[in-house]
């Protein structure tokens, strides 16, 4: 058991190392010179100050060092919780900016993912044996799942916000409101949160419910289900077993989905102008703010790895077969 966990943990550390290294390498492999681009913005018309400024920033960001040293510094800084300084919001620290944006993204994604997963599984399982549900939820599920997410988000933002004015599409809360534990502030937060949350929820709910419906139908046809029914077990028991077994592939699917949901989230936050990490990525990318971009990616890498690790542990807990293979691995 401990050996199994040690191995798993080793794999996660390896994944983390690879992620961080790629994250570090990408801006350095990309065409273009971010420092030069940044200095260009000051619109200096003579070469002298330009070079001086360039050298200054180059040194400040450490780009003048040999690559190897840059790499070391990167890790060193990382372990000291230092993700560098943003170019675009100079001299704001990247960590500060992430800390400001992350709560919005987490508040959006965590409930949307968990709620769509739980409800999708429940309703999908029900649809597997109730015609009425199967004929209503399923087509809707297919619709939401097949719809390009950006399209759904844009449609919602356009009709429900821009045309009908039912919802806002501006920031995380009403402009000018002082943050604090006040009803006005919290309700404003919820009001701004609702539409982006709903679109993310609907899209992944469609996917989960369809997947679960098909898995439960499959499980109800398996030999163990037939055997139970042949021996006179009540439908409730058969369904309970089927649900429990059908959830396993869904759980692996959840782990896989976590990575891609981040990408989709950029669209959400840009469309709804929601001040989370997705929006920050968009800004950083358009402004060629590599330090900020790298910092956010590291945050995401860590987040996805931690979430996957949690799912791994839950999986071991719910599927006894993984426990056996663990004993095999430890032997």
């Amino acid at each position: 058991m401990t050996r199994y966990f040690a191995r798993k943990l080793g794999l996660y550390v390896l994944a983390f190392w690879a992620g961080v290294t790629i994250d570090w390498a990408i801006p350095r492999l990309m065409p273009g010179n971010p420092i030069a681009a940044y200095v260009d913005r000051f619109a200096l018309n003579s070469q002298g100050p330009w070079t001086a400024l360039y050298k200054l920033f180059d040194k400040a960001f450490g780009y003048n060092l040999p690559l190897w040293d840059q790499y070391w510094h990167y890790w060193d800084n990382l372990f000291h919780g230092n993700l560098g300084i943003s170019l675009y919001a100079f001299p704001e620290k990247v960590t500060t900016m992430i800390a400001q944006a992350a709560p919005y993204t987490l508040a959006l994604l965590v409930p949307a993912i968990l709620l769509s997963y739980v409800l999708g599984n429940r309703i999908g399982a029900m649809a597997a044996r109730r015609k009425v549900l199967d004929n209503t939820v399923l087509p809707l599920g297919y619709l939401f799942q097949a719809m390009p997410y950006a399209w759904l988000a844009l449609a919602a933002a356009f009709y429900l916000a821009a045309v009908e004015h039912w919802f806002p599409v501006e920031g995380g809360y009403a402009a000018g409101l002082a943050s604090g534990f006040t009803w006005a502030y919290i309700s404003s937060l919820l009001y701004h949160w609702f539409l982006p949350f709903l679109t993310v929820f609907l899209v992944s709910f469609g996917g989960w419910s369809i997947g679960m419906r098909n898995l439960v139908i499959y499980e109800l046809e398996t030999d163990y289900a037939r055997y139970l029914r042949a021996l006179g077990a009540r439908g409730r028991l058969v369904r309970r077993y089927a649900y429990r077994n059908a959830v396993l592939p869904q759980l692996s699917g959840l782990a896989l989905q976590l990575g891609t949901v981040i990408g989709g989230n950029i669209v959400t936050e840009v469309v709804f102008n929601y001040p989370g990490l997705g929006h920050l990525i968009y800004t950083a990318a358009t402004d060629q703010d590599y330090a900020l971009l790298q910092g956010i990616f590291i945050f995401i890498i860590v987040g996805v790895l931690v979430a996957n690790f949690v799912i791994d542990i839950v999986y071991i807990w719910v599927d006894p077969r993984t426990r056996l293979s663990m004993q095999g691995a430890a032997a």
Partner: protein
Amino acid sequence: MSLSVENLRIAYRTLRGDVQAVDGVTFAVADREIMGLAGESGCGKSTLGNSLIFIEGRMKHVGGTVELDGKALPISDDRAMNHHRMRDVSIIPQYAMSALNPTKKVGTLAHDLLKSRGMKLAKVLPEFRRRVALVGLPENVLEMYPFELSGGMRQRATMVISTLLNPSLLIADEVTSALDVSNQRAVGELLTEFRDLGYVKSMIVITHDLSILAQIADTIMVMYAGKLTEKASASTMIDKPLHPYTQALLSSLPEVGVRYEDRELTGIPGRPPSLLSPPPGCRFRERCPFAYDKCVEDPPFMELLPGHQVACWKAADDVAGGAGREHNEASATPSGGAGDASPERGPSLGARAGKGAE
């Protein structure tokens, strides 16, 4: 009389029409009788066995009645059957290796199953453990997951669970086919032991392995393309089968572990007819070396000799013309008249005498 089946018809609904997998089957199984059920793959053995306990979605009860211990068995009423399942009729299904939920411990599964039926595992636990030991499973098997067991162990576990409530009738579908030879023997012996100990009153043992039937069966019944062809005591079936199909099936058997599918049916080329729209008359006609005019009519499943039922015109003629004696093989001209009693014995039948079970 333990089980009595009257003109049972079971079909599968398919897109191309109904497949008549069991087509008018009448037979009985006595108390303490172990009846072997044999026949080529796809002839409807499992369908017949399954229909006695669980008619699932795609299956359709077209007609016929089933009686168990003098009371009608409501096979087409899924709810009403629940009461009888496991208690009166039970099954070790053909898929026994995968019959246990992979994510539940054997003991948990038994507990959940009994609880779902309004019973308590605790009540039968001592008996459960005794039987686990009897079939040679380790004591802690109740705390094990199915995937921790070998195929043979899973089969035995299924056997114990299925018979936990001492059913009147047990259907054992291919319980030996996936096992190695020594295990086949052992499981065969266990089946008779279960009967002898009174865990099960009577049994239908479906198998491809006639040597197992020679070992354990009291009677053997053979099916061909959804219909019964012959039923008699095991020794009669092995020594003196009357139906040409049975003769072909048994002609070089029994040999330990040999499945009749593994050999060609000697001298009988061809395949069984489609059950989607079977041809009229004797279903074996296409392949039967003795087929004659009369065979365009469906031969009835009749008791030709005491305790020996056969569905074959020629066998009927033979018996009527004095079975048991050797006849000359000259009159090979078949004639259509029912009155024509000139019997014609197949060469293999004469040669078979005395070739008993080893």
